């Protein structure tokens, strides 16, 4: 048995089967089940040897193939009519699935060849407006905030090596800074809070500060539409919130000593 497969990443068992069918230059409607089953199992073995993450669906398909193959091996007179049909059905069913999958695989190929935005064609970059006017805004869930945080973190420069001077800024200090910014600007965009945060730690401190401010109801975070810019604004009185923070800070200091 030859195992000189060029191992590709298969999208699933149907993809692997189509690959084998193509390689053997046979027709989907007329699969040499014994050969294909053998090669299919050999590929699975190889995938296992290489420790490739193999989805359970690959094994289910292996069982189906073996089942179909066993049917074809039985002498016709020995096989009960019912079972024979069952085997035939399984084979036909598989054929249908392969044809169906093949159609969409081709359709996917055609989609991929279109002029894809930001790959082949581009539109003018739109700068997010700093002070959007929300019409009917919606509140965000924590998950959406986390997604936004992930975006900010992804934009950070990748591990650049340079001399480190630890800039210690506490969440509480950052809360005050955010409030000051809101007092000046009224509203700010989520992303713009992170523009001067150069490190992961700085981003996370800012994010925690934001969450704390939401908790004490000093700020509100919302979006005017799904996927729209995330907007932060002062909720009640910024002054009032600033006072609360200042007071807590003093209490904390006293506790600490």
């Amino acid at each position, binding site marked *: 048995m030859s195992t000189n497969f060029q191992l590709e990443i298969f*999208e*699933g*068992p*149907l*993809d692997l089967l189509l690959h084998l069918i193509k390689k053997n230059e046979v027709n989907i*409607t007329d699969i040499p089940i014994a050969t294909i089953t053998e090669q299919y199992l050999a590929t699975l073995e190889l995938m296992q040897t290489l420790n490739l993450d193999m*989805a359970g*669906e690959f094994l289910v*398909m292996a069982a189906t193939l073996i089942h179909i193959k066993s049917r074809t091996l039985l002498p016709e007179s020995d096989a009960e009519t019912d079972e024979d049909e069952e085997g035939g059905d399984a084979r036909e069913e598989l*054929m*249908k*699935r392969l*044809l*169906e*999958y093949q*159609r*969409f*695989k*081709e*359709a*996917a*190929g*055609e*989609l*991929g060849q*279109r*002029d*894809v*935005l*930001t*790959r*082949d*064609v*581009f*539109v*003018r*970059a*739109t700068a997010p407006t700093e002070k959007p006017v929300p019409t009917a805004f919606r509140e965000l869930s924590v998950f959406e905030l986390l*997604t936004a945080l992930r975006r900010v973190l992804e934009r950070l420069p990748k591990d650049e090596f340079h001399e480190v001077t630890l800039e210690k800024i506490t969440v509480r200090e950052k809360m005050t800074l955010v409030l000051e910014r809101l007092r000046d600007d009224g509203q700010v965009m989520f992303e713009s809070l992170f523009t001067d945060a150069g490190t992961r730690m700085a981003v996370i401190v800012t994010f925690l500060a934001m969450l704390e401010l939401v908790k004490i109801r000093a700020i509100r975070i919302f979006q005017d539409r*799904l*996927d729209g810019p995330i907007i932060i604004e002062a909720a009640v009185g910024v002054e009032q919130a600033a006072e609360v923070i200042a007071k807590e800070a003093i209490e904390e200091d006293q506790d600490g000593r």
Partner: protein
Amino acid sequence: MEGESLKSIVESLLFVAEGPLTLQRLAEVIEGADKSEITAALEQIRTDLESNRRGVRLVEVAGGYQLRTPKENADWVKKFLGGRPARMGRATLETLAIVAYRQPVTKAEIEAIRGVDVDGVVNTLMERSLIRAVGRKDVPGRPFLFGTTPEFLQLFNMKDLSELPTLKELDEITLPEPVGEGVLAEGIDEEL
């Protein structure tokens, strides 16, 4: 309104618009010009840009009009913009194709065609707003039905779903009744 100035105004609006600009919106803004005049202006802009091989072209996309760079300049634009190129993996494309042709479609139906679990890719496509839940199927468990979004049309430079190439017909096998492309496009248009 004089033809040349109308053309100029339309071009300005196309330039500043944040996304595909609909004829409806253009007509609302440009008082004194009716839709047929605006359509004529759009067509002139399109042919002007095309025939002079300009660096932007007028494309009909997602039910509107948008200025986009031509494909032949892609490498330069990409170099200028930097960043990662848009990734279009096979799992993504296959799943998108199934949703596009079979919508509204459930996760289980996508899985039946692809033969693999599609949880991850469906979530990613939702996050990227390329597909969305359009309803629930009236079967046990009431699973979500998914359909494509205007962002899908924008991503693939499509005016509407009728621009999807016809699925290859199969001779030997009778497949489940395919949804008529025309009907499909119509139904979706209404929703967008």
